[in-house]
């Protein structure tokens, strides 16, 4: 969906749903995921429909993901870092996921 105009100068590797992906250190997690071709970052808690980044400036809360076991984090506002473990935000709370980790 999106491509990089230039190769990352400070590449980092992180995981989304167990899949290793590459990004640029410091760019937003949402940007890194979009560059990796992932657009559905969460499921709606109401109708379970897929949702993805919409406003990219912290207003719409559509880009919520799980970061290192913590839910409801805005992917557009959190920087990509080496070794981050991310998960798609579930629609309905998943009791097992509340154990933390990923």
């Amino acid at each position, binding site marked *: 969906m999106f491509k990089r105009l230039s190769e990352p100068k400070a590449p980092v590797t992180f995981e989304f749903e167990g899949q290793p992906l590459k990004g640029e250190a410091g760019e937003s997690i949402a940007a890194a995921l979009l560059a990796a071709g992932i657009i559905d970052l969460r499921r709606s808690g109401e*109708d379970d429909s897929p949702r*993805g980044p919409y406003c990219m400036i912290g207003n719409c809360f559509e880009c919520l993901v799980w970061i290192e076991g913590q839910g409801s984090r805005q992917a557009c506002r959190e920087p990509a870092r080496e070794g981050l473990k991310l998960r798609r935000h579930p629609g309905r709370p998943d009791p097992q996921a509340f154990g933390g980790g990923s």
Partner: protein
Amino acid sequence: MIHKVDIAIIGAGPAGMSLAQSLVSGDEKTRPPSVAVIDEQKDGGGQVYRAALRQAPDLASVLGQEYQSARPWLQEASQNPDIQFYFRTSAWNIEPREDGVELALVSAGRNWRLRAKRLVLASGAMERPTPFSGWQTPGVMTMGAAQTLMKDAGLVPDQPLVLLGSGPLLYLFAKQLLQSGVSIQAVLHTGPRGLRAAAWAAFWAALPGNFSPLGKGLLWRMQLALARVPQVFNVAEVVAQPDPQDTAGGLGALRYRVGGHWHTLQTGLVLVHDGVVPNTHLAAACGCSLTWDQQQACWRPELDETGRSSQSQIWALGDGARIMGSEAARWQGVAMAPALLESLGYQPSAANLARCQEAQRRLAPLQRLRRFLDAQFPPAGAFSEISDDTQVCRCEAISAGEIRRIAGLGCSGVNQARSFTRVGMGPCMGRQCGASVAKVLAGAQGKPQSALGYFTVRLPLKPVTVGDLCALEADAPASG
């Protein structure tokens, strides 16, 4: 010890940065007030000059001269040792007090408090929400979002895309996309091809002193035409449809109506824009009175001529106060400094007063330019008729049809609509849906939109963890 400053500014965009710089650059003899600037981004510039301080030269030419020219003065302000900067910092509570305000802030997991005698909201604009059927489908994003990806991460769309909506940003961003080698499949304008009848008088009035911005606008329009991008005008209705084969549920097609005829575009990416509105979330949270701006069809904080809100210790400026654009925001920062200093008992320097006068002079043509832009690009077409199946509240998945149903039950305003349906009670806390809910209620009940009110804002203003709350520290982190 709770950290204390004279003036706290929320927002390091053109308004906040220029105000901070003006406040601390009085004459040499007097001690400047202590000023703290808070922003969620990692450096100054706001949305308009996002990443201008660290932009790679290869992208700078695409983003344009005006964007690049902000770098020197942003840099100068950023390095001013008399300003305390707290970046990557969110305000999750603002408590007005008799002698000022107390802010609860979270910076990289550190939770701390700041007391200020004056709080200035320079919270900028957000894109006007554009509800239409299927707009929650991944692959539908705002133009501002795509521009943020370009500025911040050097990302551009790698597939043909559709631009939908109206406003100066549409033309600017189309130019930037074409310059980056992106293929634009079509531009769907919600407005007419030429100038609106109501905009001609404002156009002639705006012309003196605004040759440069108006000329740039015309040039962008011409570039789009020369690129032979198919353009459609007066789009009255749109429907985004997910691709049934895509497991990610991404966009497959965009249907649109012009007059009585429906057309379909196969596309995976639609970028939407319908102008910008003040981001009033913080002002509302502080209990500042908001007023309905008929010309710009949005709420804005009610301010006196110096920029003081109904809460005397809280001031506001820039696009968060009223949409005037980035250049005006910068001059407003210069113009506000003397009155703000005086309110704290500081004597503004002669230099400060002279700069304030210059700023007032510079703001006059920008006001005329804005009147033209407001007349030419009103919210219209596809986003003004909200169909029953449109999710006005994306978080809680509440449709316009449901809002019309409760309108019929006598729902008296947006806050009561919350109790009826949970509209505006999801993670975005009503930032996206407040105005749309009011618009649908107003339409159904035959009332003016302003009569339906705006959402009461509740704490916390941003998500904080219980762990963060428990770790509340009094000391400020190191500024910078």
